[in-house]
């Protein structure tokens, strides 16, 4: 009790309010974000891609599903700036429409995998022992199957369709995120500041979400950006096998698969959807790298 009174006295003795002209945390975040070149470039490319997807009906010069067999496999020209595919459809139009599907597939599948991957990995790494053995045992079993095979198995249960493909791909990639998160949590939880956080009375939930996970962010961000491209390609592979994204739907992965047969006499058919995927991945990668730095107070 005496201690309380002493502290109060102290507070009174030093009683003047310090007024500091400071920005809010969001304004500060925006300012730092704008200073990060890679984050801005990444976001810029992404905005362009999203606009392509949203405004595809306005921007596309041709109907992406209308075939014109006489000009099939034609190389890029003034009328068809990216050429036409094996059925004579305009590749530029198909890429614009394809963005609608591919971007959504990539982002949704990774979001799903991230959510469960972070949760399971954090629990396994934090609690260790039996919890760890149980969770990571299941993850290892999942990793031991080729992912496309496992995704196929899930598709047979879930049924066909793009939404189902997203769920299947998301579930199948959970172990990869869980592994990374678990490993990082294992090392971060040994830090003295985690013990300090426990000593001041944090419960397990706050220890994990406030003190450990923010310090595990960097590897998660890097892995997720790569994961988006993997998800797009896996959705294409599922489509190729007759599940997920089905032809003739304009989708980058499916376009790659279809152009594969004519890769030697008409390489432009695979080149441009491939470039679109690369550009998307690069955008997410730049944005991810930038965000990682922006969110790290040590690099202020």
């Amino acid at each position, binding site marked *: 009790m005496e201690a309380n009174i002493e502290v109060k006295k102290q*507070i009174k003795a*030093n009683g003047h309010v310090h007024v*500091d002209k400071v920005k809010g945390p969001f304004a500060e975040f925006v300012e730092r974000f704008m200073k990060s070149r890679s984050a801005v470039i990444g976001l810029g490319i992404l905005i362009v891609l999203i606009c392509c997807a949203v405004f595809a009906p306005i921007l596309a010069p041709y109907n992406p599903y209308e075939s014109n067999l006489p000009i099939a496999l034609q190389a890029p020209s003034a009328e068809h700036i990216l050429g036409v595919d094996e059925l004579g459809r305009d590749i530029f139009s198909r890429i614009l429409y394809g963005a609608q599907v591919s971007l959504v597939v990539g982002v949704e599948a990774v979001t799903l995998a991230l959510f469960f991957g972070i949760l399971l990995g954090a629990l396994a790494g934090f609690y260790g022992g039996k919890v760890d053995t149980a969770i990571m045992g299941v993850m290892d079993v999942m990793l031991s199957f080729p992912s496309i095979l496992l995704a196929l198995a899930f598709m047979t249960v879930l049924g066909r369709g793009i939404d189902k493909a997203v769920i299947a791909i998301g579930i199948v990639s959970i172990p990869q995120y869980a592994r990374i998160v678990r490993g990082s949590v294992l090392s971060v939880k040994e830090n003295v500041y985690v013990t*300090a956080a426990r000593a*001041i009375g944090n419960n397990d939930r706050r220890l994990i979400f406030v003190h450990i996970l923010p310090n595990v962010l960097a590897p998660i961000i890097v892995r997720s950006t790569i994961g988006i491209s993997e998800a797009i390609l896996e959705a294409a592979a599922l489509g190729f096998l007759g599940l997920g994204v089905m032809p003739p739907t304009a989708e980058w992965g499916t376009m790659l698969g279809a152009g594969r047969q004519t890769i030697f006499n008409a390489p432009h058919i695979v080149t441009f959807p491939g470039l679109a995927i690369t550009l998307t991945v690069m955008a997410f990668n730049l944005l991810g790298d930038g965000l990682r730095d922006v969110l790290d107070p040590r690099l202020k």
Partner: protein
Amino acid sequence: MSKEEHLLTVRNLKKHFPIRGGLFGGQIGTVQAVDGVSFTIKHGQTLGLVGESGCGKSTTGMLVLRLLEMTAGQVLFQGQDVGQMKKQELRDFRRHAQIIFQDPYASLNPRMSVGDIIAEPMMLHDIASGIERTKKVEDLLKVVGLGPHHARRYPHEFSGGQRQRIGIARALAVQPKLIVCDEPVSALDVSIQSQILNLLVDLQQELGLAYLFIAHGLNAVKHISDEIGVMYLGKMVELGEGDELILNPLHPYTKTLISAIPQPHPGAKKNRIILQGDVPSPANPPSGCRFHTRCPEQIAICSQEEPEFRQVQSRFVACHLVK
């Protein structure tokens, strides 16, 4: 001496870490990190706990705060058994007993601003909120010798000594009665060490804090401790009133520690006792007295029988030589 005087009572505290190995990861041994340590701390007083690396002194500090689960023994805080506390009781206990860590570079979350680090304990224990909390953070920063403008900065922007001050402010935020100081100055420059020690002494006088002050040499603890406990290989070998223990050490290990304190007079006669060999492994401690392998005064019985930790006048000591 009434029970009420004791803020903290530790009885026969033990911590044995299992050593796992072999084909099936079974237990193949134990590290007896802390093996039967007892002491008490009164309100507003300081117990200095000294011993070389690996003697279990930091483990003892962690056990007292139940940041590690003890193997055996009892820790009583204001009469309450810390080992038996349920979740809610443990939360309340954390409000009264705090810790300052050795490494100021590792003990602050790099992603939290200094203001958030100091405000967090107040938020967790519902002490003040909103503007009042911000105000208290500024006051705490002043108490430890930093400025209110430091609240918005991040730990990496500070020096070791400043970080240690932040760590102290965090511990003070809940207005504790006991603070475990786990070698709070040994990672700092010598010039900064005395600043931090003085700050700790001032805070003790102002706030009536009790300290369990852990250090590896008597040098740091001799000025600020009311009582000093000397540990060797998981055991307390001597415990007594500070000045008296330094003037008249009874245990041979205490004598060697005292001979290691640097003398301020260049001409003073030096009688340093240099111990031979290394500290034996706590996984396989020597028979009898644990110190007998390195003791300059050992006799036959030392390797056979373990000396009892018993009271000799106002002192507790575990040595066959002390009658």
